Structure formats: C-alpha cells, structure tokens
C-alpha cells in the first residue's frame, strides 16, 4: 500500500541553509532517507522550492489560466513530498513520526493513501 507524505511548514520555521543547526537538521533527513531505503519503504521523495516559485493551472470559462503562486493561500506551505510503501496506516504513521520535520517540531506532515488503480477495478 502506497502513501504520500506531504510536508509543510511555515516560512523560516526550521534552520536556514548554512545557519547554525542546519548541518544537524540536514543530517537527520539523510539518516531518515537511508533508514527508510534500507527498510524498503521509500519509493521517492523530493524537496520543492518555496510557493513564490509556483505556477497554478486552472480552467476558467473553457480556457486554461495560469496563476502565479500556489493553489491555496495558507500559512503553512508545501516544502516537499515522499512516496512510501507500507503495510498499513500504522506503519506509515510510525515512519512519518520520525521525519525530522515533525520530530524537530518545524512543521506538519499530511499522510495520504495513494489510489491503487488495480483496486479500482475490483
């Protein structure tokens, strides 16, 4: 069963790159990635640039309009995502708890089950 982790945090909540604490924080992510890969649950994952770099597409009156910015204006912004494969939600949550973002208290993680196209045809 696949799950996505959608990682979000408020701007400037964690240590900035190069600042004090950054090395430890980054190392914690590297360790999580290694552990998850070793356990065989990690499928993919990437950090993304801030919302100011986002472009949102939406069809309005039959025409696809581009909007400069993210689709939702919220206090927290999406900073990255993972795709993991776990037996069930308990396992997915246990792994998510260990991600530095929540483990260090710098943001939130939304765990969403991925639609299995094979299940749909059942």
């Amino acid at each position: 069963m696949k799950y996505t982790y959608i990682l979000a945090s408020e701007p400037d909540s964690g240590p900035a790159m190069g600042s004090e604490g950054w090395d430890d924080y980054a190392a914690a992510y590297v360790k999580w990635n290694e552990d998850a890969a070793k356990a065989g649950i990690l499928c993919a994952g990437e950090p993304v640039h801030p919302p100011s770099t986002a472009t949102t597409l939406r069809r309005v009156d039959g025409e696809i309009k581009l909007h400069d910015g993210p689709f939702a204006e919220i206090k927290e912004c999406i900073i990255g995502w993972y795709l993991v494969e776990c037996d069930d939600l308990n396992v997915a949550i246990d792994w998510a708890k260990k991600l530095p973002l929540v483990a260090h208290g710098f943001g939130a993680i939304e765990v969403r089950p991925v639609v299995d196209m094979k299940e749909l045809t059942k």
Partner: protein
Amino acid sequence: MRSEKLVRQLEETHRREWGRSVAAICRASGDLQLAEDCVQDAFASALKTWGTSGVPDNPGAWIRTAARRRLIDFIRRRKTRLQSDGKLRIEAELTAIEDIDEKYLSDKVIDDDELALIFLCCHPTISPTDQVMLTLTIVTGLTPKDIAAAFFADHEAIRTRLLRSKRKIKAARIPVSIPATDQLEERSRQVHAVIYLIFNEGYLTSRQENVTRPDLTYEAMRLCKTLIDLAPGNSESCGLYALMHLTDARVLARVSGAGVLIPLDQQDRDLWRKDQIVAGFNYLRRAFSGGAVGRYTLQAAIAAEHAKAATYEQTNWSAIVTLYDRLIEIEDSPVYRLNRCIALSYKDGPISALEDLALISDSGLLSDSYQLIATRADFLARVGHLDEAVKDYRKAIDQLPNGSIKASLAKKLAALNIVSD
C-alpha cells in the same frame, strides 16, 4: 414459537453477537462495510428461519456461518464480472475464506478479532466524535437511527459521518489489529476515553423524556465489560467500570421530580443503588490490585469514598484530597483542581479553601467560569460573607442558559436571600 419470544431472543443475540460477528467476518473479508452487510443479512435470515426451525444451540455460530456464506456468495458474484487475472486473485481469496472456516468455532480467535475491532473504531487517526459513532455502530450494533436518537442529532448527518469514517478506514488501510505492546497502553486509554464519552452522554442527558432512546450508559458499561473480558490485563478498564457503576448508582438521586439537578450534598443516599455500589467496589479492588493506577481508577476511588459515607458531612475528605492530588499528578486539569479545592474546604475549612481557590482563579485556567464563581459563592456563604456570596451566585446564574444547573444555583441563591433578610 411465539414471535414475541423470538424477537427477544434475536435482540439478545444481536446484542451479544453483532460486534463479534462483524469482527470475524471482517478478518475474512478485509472490508468493514461488507462484513456489516453480511452480518445484517444473516440476522435477516435468522428472523425468517428461527421461527420455524427454532433458535439454534449456538446462535452466534449460526449467525457467523450464515454471514460467511453471504460473503462467499458476494465474492463469487464479483468473480464472474472480472477478467482472468482478477479471477485468479478472487479464487485465492475464496480459498482463504474457506480455509478459516474452522476458526469460526474458536472463541479465542473471535475474542481477538473483537478486541481488534474495538481498537480499530478507536483509532487515533479518526476524530473522537467519529470514534464514538463507529464504536456504537460496529461494536455495539446500534443503527445510525439509534445513534441519531441518542445524540439528538440528524439521522442523515450521522449516516454521512459513518460512511466517511468507513471510507477512510478502507482507503487509508487502517489495520484491524491489536496494537503492539509499546502502544497498547496509549491506545487502551483512547478506548477508555470513548467508552467514558458514551457513558457521560447517556448519564448527563435526561433519560425520561424519550423512552425509545437507546440507553447509552448501559451500552458504555456493556462495552467496558467486553473490554475487561477480552483484555483482563488492563486494570484501568476495571477502574473505569467501577467508576461507571458508582456514578450510575446515584442516578435516581441526582434529579428531582421537576428535573432539577440535585448536588451530591443534598442527595437522598437511600436512593443510591446498593447493587451498583457493591459491583463498583468489587471492580475497584481489581483495579487497585493490577499495575499502575490510572485516572479512572482514581476517580472511581473518589466516588467510592462518597459511597462509603453515610452522610455528606461524614465523608472522608482528607482521603479525597489525597486522591485528587494523585489525579492532578497524572493530568493537571482545572476541573480536578476545583474539585480538590471543594474537598479541601471541608477538610481544612472554607477560609483556607478560598485562598486555594484564588490561586486557581489567578492561574486563569478556569478564569470566570460559572463553576469557579459558584464554588466561591458557596465558600463565601459558609464563611458568613453573605452579600459577596449573593453577588457571586447572581454572576454565575447570569452566565448559564436555562437548565437544571441554573435552577439548582437559583435555589441556593434563594436560600441565601432568606437568611440574609
């Protein structure tokens, strides 16, 4: 067989076997909604056949066998609609279901299934309100209509909420399993919280006006007993069960004929149910002989102190203050602090209790709640500061909507006015 008797026996079977059957079928199907539908169908056919063939020796096993047959029918029907690779998978599913046939006869396996189902309904990824609704439908077998009546809620809204939760369970694959040892305590606490929510909903709302309303206090106690039987190692379950017995013992004494809430100090203790008190004491002993003492056990111990006292004045207040101290160590709740302060006012007198109350008030936890103000009014009256007491009672009464608590405060205020006149 007379149909009245049959209906009673079916209801009894439904109460005892609904959750167990859903649990057993769910393990086979891996699909909660499907399991519920199969068990529902099994009860429908029981209604049809038991009238002529008689009630089977083991009604639960009969229901589960019938439900399992429904499940197999359903999966076969699905198989005919599928392409060949899907058919292979279904074939494997069917074999799996047929293989576990024998296990339906083993009570131990079903016990674990039922316990796992309770933990599923109280899973922390589901909101507490929805945990309550799910537990009541899936474990105790209430219908959405029953729940709507019990909570004075809209039937359609309850149905929608339940559907949403069940969809989440399926889509996110929340497992039907007994939590691992390192999470068992935390997860059990959640189950206790759900049971206590159900109990309080039944206990705090008046029961007289609607006789068709399901008795939630009864459902909560039955659920707790099931939990004790399934997981006897958790002593806090016994503490919770004791607390519910000792609280429910006062049910006839707590409301006057006019529907006014009667506070503990004015209750007629002869109306307290002795059988409930005895049961409460028994389970409290079991709770204390287990491992760590939790919040429900301590609350039950406080209720037991009240039950032991012949009159309110003869209550062992110093024992109650100590119990509240232990409770506050576990959870520093303003309500516990306030109740401790009330006990303190009888142990050390209202003057030192007023000082303690000022500390709670300063902490801002209860700020200007009516509970705090009404308590202060009571202390002031006992110290003899009647004018201030009257002022506080008025302030507390102003905060409240019409209801039995307001009426009971108004009564105290009226008594005070007579004295001060």
